[in-house]
């Protein structure tokens, strides 16, 4: 069927930009093609994964022995602050925006994002605030060193009294990151609502689109309060106001409300797209439809809603009255329900499947395994009396990393391997991928599982030194951390060599069902161009023998001929 099947609502993006290069140089230019921007995001953020990982290994090196002996404690504090900031704002948020850019247009059959220039501008803010943040290492007095929460009054102390200081640059970088994220969120949400292929009703969207939408909705609601809080903090730090300074009548606890109102949901911004990746990959590699598609889809927005009303569980021991503790304990525990729906749906998807354990599937299974564990410690942390003991200890660090790396990180790797052939046009090397998985899974478990016990025994987080009774857990943790550093070697080797000279990828190497797999590998600019398929069925029709789109053979043939 070659007649144009074009929904008049779809805006045709101005691409290619006249004069835009079509070779490697396009990755270094203000390119408006979402697929180029996606790769720009992913490569940039993987670089910062290495930076953040290096900082983490110095931190773990310090914690290898009880006394503070590797670096000065002030340096340790700066390093762990920057580790958290780099990992969140320069690795995780950008890499997931990279996935959004690659997958949203191709999965919904749109030629590009709704606002391609805004999209490129959002990406190019990343190197800008990355420079600001990295530059803060050279600020007088060193970088910010009050933790990634930057709680006042500690964050307002500014010992040297310079106007330009590490904390100042840190706030500036985080505010710019927020602006970039809002620009991205506006774009992603608009694209999902307005630019879906004909026939793709909401309940025919892939789950990744549902989760990206749910996550970006959180960005739109949560980032303005955080940015407001950051501006007030900046004014307190630089211009002598007293929003949070107790000396002037301000309230330091108020900042914690601003901060966590966004920063707790922020974890869901990160984890939701990974739930999307799990929901895409389990059906492909189990050769089965996703179990309970509609429940999984709706659960995403259940998480979005609940994420807005849980923030004070970070403040159970700040003097929060009991009635408020109890409300937030209930809402926090309720999150276990929609996430449980998802976990059970994935398990149901695996049941009686025909499992193929290649690298992306291994990362998914490892991520799911860790996430079940993290969910259980999450309910423990939501329990007020338990949190009063383990809050602000290594237990929280362990739980947080079980979510942020052992689940989200593994899910991100799964996604990278799974869609690598689609967007680079090359196959990766399965053997190196499996080595990467084994090292990552063992390293991650060794790194964070033992820290739960250190926390239960009462080791506070963010310490540069600790009592000798915690040594065994920390030695194990540090070995795990160094192992994760080693794990990056097969990964880098695999990515670089595969992209340069891996075997040509067919359009659909995994025999997956989805609009992106009806495109050539790599997809051309504007994806389906003028001939957008009409979606006629729910996604994930594995084994059901039903076509996803009208006239599917035509698109399959066209993708193979390209």
């Amino acid at each position, binding site marked *: 069927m070659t007649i144009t099947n074009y929904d008049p609502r779809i805006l045709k993006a101005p691409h290619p930009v006249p004069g835009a290069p079509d070779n490697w140089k396009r990755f270094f230019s203000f390119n408006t093609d979402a697929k180029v921007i996606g790769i720009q995001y992913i490569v940039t953020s993987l670089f910062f994964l290495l930076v953040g990982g290096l900082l983490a290994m110095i931190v773990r090196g310090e914690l290898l022995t009880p006394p503070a002996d590797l670096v*000065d*404690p*002030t340096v340790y*504090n700066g390093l762990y602050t920057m580790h958290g900031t780099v990992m969140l704002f320069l690795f995780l948020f950008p890499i997931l925006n990279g996935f959004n850019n690659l997958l949203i247009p191709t999965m919904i059959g749109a030629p590009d994002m709704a606002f391609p220039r805004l999209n490129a501008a959002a990406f190019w803010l990343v190197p800008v605030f990355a420079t600001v943040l990295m530059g803060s290492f050279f600020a007088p007095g*060193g970088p910010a*060193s009050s933790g990634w929460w930057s709680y006042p*009054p500690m964050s307002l102390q500014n010992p040297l009294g310079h106007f330009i200081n*590490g904390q100042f640059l840190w706030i500036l970088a985080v505010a710019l990151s927020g602006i970039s994220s809002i620009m991205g969120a506006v774009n992603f949400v608009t694209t999902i609502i307005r630019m879906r292929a004909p026939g793709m009703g909401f309940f025919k969207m892939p789950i990744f689109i549902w989760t990206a939408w749910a996550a970006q909705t959180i960005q739109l609601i949560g980032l303005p309060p955080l940015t407001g809080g950051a501006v007030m903090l900046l004014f307190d730090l630089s211009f002598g106001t007293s929003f949070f300074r*107790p000396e002037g009548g301000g309230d330091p*606890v108020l900042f914690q409300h601003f901060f966590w109102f966004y920063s707790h949901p922020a974890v869901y911004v990160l984890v939701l797209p990974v739930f999307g990746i799990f929901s895409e990959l389990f059906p492909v590699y189990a*050769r*089965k439809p*996703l*179990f*309970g*598609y509609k*429940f999984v889809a709706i659960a995403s927005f259940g998480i979005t809603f609940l994420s807005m009303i849980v923030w004070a569980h970070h403040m159970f021991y700040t*003097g929060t*009255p*009991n009635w408020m503790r*109890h409300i937030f*304990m209930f809402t926090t*525990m*309720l999150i276990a*329900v929609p996430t449980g729906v998802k976990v*059970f749906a994935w*398990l*149901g998807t*695996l*049941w*009686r*499947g*025909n*499992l193929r*354990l290649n690298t992306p599937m291994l990362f998914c*299974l490892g991520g799911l395994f860790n996430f*079940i564990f993290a969910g*259980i*410690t999450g*309910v*423990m942390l939501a329990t*007020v*009396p338990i949190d*009063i*003991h383990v*809050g*602000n*200890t290594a237990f929280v660090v362990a739980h947080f990393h079980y979510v942020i790396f052992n689940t989200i990180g593994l899910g991100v790797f799964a996604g990278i391997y799974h869609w690598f052939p689609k967007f680079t046009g090359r196959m990766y090397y399965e053997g190196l991928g499996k080595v990467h998985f084994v090292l990552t899974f063992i390293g991650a478990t060794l790194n964070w599982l033992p820290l739960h016990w250190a926390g*239960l*025994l*009462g080791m*506070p*987080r*963010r*310490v*540069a*030194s600790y*009592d000798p009774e915690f040594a065994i857990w920390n030695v194990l943790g540090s070995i795990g951390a160094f192992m994760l550093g080693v794990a990056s070697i097969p990964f880098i080797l695999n990515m670089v060599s595969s992209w340069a000279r891996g075997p040509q990828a067919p359009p659909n190497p995994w025999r997956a069902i989805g609009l992106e797999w009806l495109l050539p590998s790599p997809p051309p600019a504007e994806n389906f161009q003028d001939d957008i398929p009409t979606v006629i069925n729910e996604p994930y029709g*594995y084994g*059901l023998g039903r076509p996803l789109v009208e006239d599917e053979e035509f698109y399959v043939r066209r993708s193979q001929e390209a």
Partner: protein
Amino acid sequence: MTTTTPKKSPNIGAIVIITIAIGLNLVIAKMMANWSYSWFPPQASSAAPYVDDLFALETGIGSFIFFGCTGFMGWVLLFNRAGKYDESDGAPIEGNTKLEITWTIIPLVTVFLIATYSMNVNMKLQTLGPKHKYAIGTDPTVLIAKDPKADVGPIDVIARQWSWEFVYPNGVRSSELHLPVDQRVNFRLISEDVLHSFFVPAFRLKQDIIPGSIISYSLTPTKEGRFRLRDAMFSGAYFSQNQTNVVVESEATYTNWLKTTADQPLQPGLDPGRALYDRRLARGDKGWATVPPAPPPQVNDPGDPSIPHDA
């Protein structure tokens, strides 16, 4: 969790396997719950048994869910693997509404029960009293009445960058916190610089100390010994050094200590960040910026940090 897809006729083999699996999982969950008590420091306050019991309960439930789900994953990995050249699809099951509603309702009821139970436990702890804001520079202690249920106190707990100071009702000042066993003690938590947190792992209790606010806090130690008091809210350069001991002793020893210490002259108390700061200065003030440590508190009893702590 370990439930299977519904079958038309009862499958005896499957029922037997599931029953054995659930039974085994219950046993493992109970063992994990029992084991979890050994993951904590000794129970040294009236709050500790509540926290440990609650944790054991959640460890049991959590273990059941974790081993149920991962056991299921293990089963699938063993028996549902595709052969090397097998490209066929799995069973085309799209879902099962009854099952999906079940696994929505059961977790909902479970977390509701856990939350209700935890709320009741939390109400029994009775630690946090009123919190009042005050202008820095004024005396906050006039703002707060003593906890009427407390036997001892109020003891002022003053946290600084980076030292602890304790002021007892008779005016005695110390660097280590002395408490009589089995008596409810009331504290007034005060900070004059940044956030700190009063955290005694053996008590299972933690309360942030907020500059500009005075917080009334009460607890009952139940075990004699020396327990670590750790600052648990990041407070800057020498945060990890900002620890001292809580000495829980018999009432007679405590009273005697109060009496004899009152006669001791004031002297500089524990100042755990100082040694590292001096080392830094000796090395030419290298490193990233920090405020200098607050001057050591003047106390009647500086304590002895070299005595090993019990937990």
